[in-house]
């Protein structure tokens, strides 16, 4: 279970006034859920995902992942938790341009225990097969379409079967057909037992989830 307990996140940019990203949010996400959070741009959706993934520290409150207070851990422990528990799909693909597709998918396996890393290449190939990109293993990111990039990102996020998949605007900049393909993939991943938390400003994606919340000015509402 993922739990946010009265979490607030305030940004203090230089030479600008403070911005409240999340405002006293409490939330529980049970295993197996497909939570879709919608809201306009800048309402705090990405902030919430970053807090769950331990990429941002809350100004107040607690973030618990399977009972562990994320910010009670040191950097090494937190990195290990991220590795074990979460797969992250960033809004921008963030593939490493100098690595080919299969190498990009293998990146998370660098942080797997050495004895488990031996099959990393096979895991990556399987993940690519799951997203329908077996024929693109040697291609480089610059040779991929936007939809293919998203699928590589999904493959990277699921390569070592994390229990939680965090997806930030997974269908951004995609045409309708490709959007449906990507969402179909996420649905199949969810059906495989992965808990998905998806944030988007597209109301059309609400139907894919098992639960829907709305975010506005840093606050969550059902």
């Amino acid at each position, binding site marked *: 279970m993922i739990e946010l307990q009265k979490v607030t996140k305030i940004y203090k940019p230089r030479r600008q006034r403070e911005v409240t990203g999340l405002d006293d949010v409490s939330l529980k996400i049970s295993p197996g859920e497909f939570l879709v959070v919608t809201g306009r741009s800048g309402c705090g959706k990405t902030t919430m995902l970053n807090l769950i993934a331990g*990429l941002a520290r809350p100004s107040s409150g607690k973030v618990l992942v399977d009972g562990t207070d994320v910010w009670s851990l040191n950097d*090494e422990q937190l*990195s290990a938790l991220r590795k074990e528990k979460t797969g992250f799909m*960033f809004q921008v693909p963030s593939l490493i341009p100098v690595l080919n597709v299969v190498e990009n998918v293998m990146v998370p*396996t660098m*942080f797997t225990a050495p004895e488990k890393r031996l099959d990393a290449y096979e895991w990556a190939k399987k993940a690519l097969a799951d997203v329908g990109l077996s024929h693109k293993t040697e291609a480089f990111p610059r040779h991929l379409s936007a939809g293919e990039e998203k699928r590589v990102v999904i493959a990277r996020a699921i390569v070592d079967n994390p229990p939680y998949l965090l997806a930030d605007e997974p269908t951004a900049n995609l045409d309708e057909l490709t959007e449906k393909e990507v969402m179909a993939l996420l649905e199949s991943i969810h059906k495989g037992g992965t808990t998905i938390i998806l944030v988007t400003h597209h109301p059309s994606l609400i139907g894919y989830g098992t639960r829907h919340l709305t975010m506005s000015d840093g606050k969550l509402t059902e």
Partner: protein
Amino acid sequence: MNLQRLVSESIRGRQFRSGLIVAFIALLAGLILASTLVLRGMESGLRTGMERLGADFISVPYHGFEPIVAKGALLTGELAIGYWMRAENLEKVAELDGVERVSPQIYLQPVTGAPFCSAEELYVVAFDPKTDFTIQPWLKQRLDRPLGLWEVIGGDSITVPPGTGITLDSHQLELVGKLLPTGMWLDSAIFFSLETLGAMMAEPETSSIIPPDMPAEAISAIAVKVKDGYSIDYVATDSLTAAPATWPIRSTQLMRLLSEQRAGLLKTLFMSLGIVWLLAVALTALIFTMMVNERRREIGMLRAVGASSNFIFRLFLTESSLLAVGGATIGIIVGATAVYAMKSWLTSTLGVEFLMPTLLGILALMVITLVAALIVSLPALLYPAIRASHMDPAEAMREV
């Protein structure tokens, strides 16, 4: 997939940027090594010259100008060409109390572009082989007989082997011996006996190597060896009285003059090197920092998939260190090669003696320079790696 693979792919995949960084570091390392080699070469030349000098002082003509300028010295390479003293001064100095031995030298007109000499200017010197104790000690192999008529010995820059006939201003001469490298003007000189000089002067044709205003019974310099137990200063002072219009130049005076010259050159070299180093380190730090900035999203993504800040630090430090080692290695190889290739040019341009260190010495200097270049590059390597490791992953992903 591991850190090493990620680093190697990053270097290979960003060739222009990697090449630029390697070039900067190569420049720094190459300059450090080249400067060090030049200084060591100067030092070696000076030291070797002093060891073989033999003479405690050299009397040169004093013609009312600053006598230290008319060095006529075995060390500095600036011969007192065109200045003369009477040959009778030789006996007067030899008779002084405390003088062990004396030997005359006559500096004739240099020859430009001699085909058998790799240096631009060939010095021509007549000396007395029977009394000489400053030139013949440099011979690679001792002659088993006195230097004969029309026979010459040559410096290390003479490109033909002993036994070869050479033509010098229509005079047919035979090279019978070569000197060891000295790092001094001796390298680009030929020496023949006073007997040969007399034969040249007796020929009816005018010789371009014999100055037209050369007086009869004139010499250019007297090398003087003082007996043990006698004060060199006193004997040198006595020579002023015995041989007026001469001036004794002590070897220690020459050393001091050369040290001053060298100190000035050292200062200039070090200042230039310091400026280049500062610029190179600053630019390298800037390039590495730009490299970190351009890969913000990559850093954020790596953190999101489980990389610790320590991993990020090691990632960027490894990449930048590899580039630095590669650049330094290239730089020291190019630097050493350049100094070796420009040895003659350095000697003539800088006007100082230059002896390349031995191969082992060069290798040792290369290793030391490699380590030094890496040490001075360390701030430029560490800062971007620390910056990357402390980057807020969420912020890194936010900014485009």
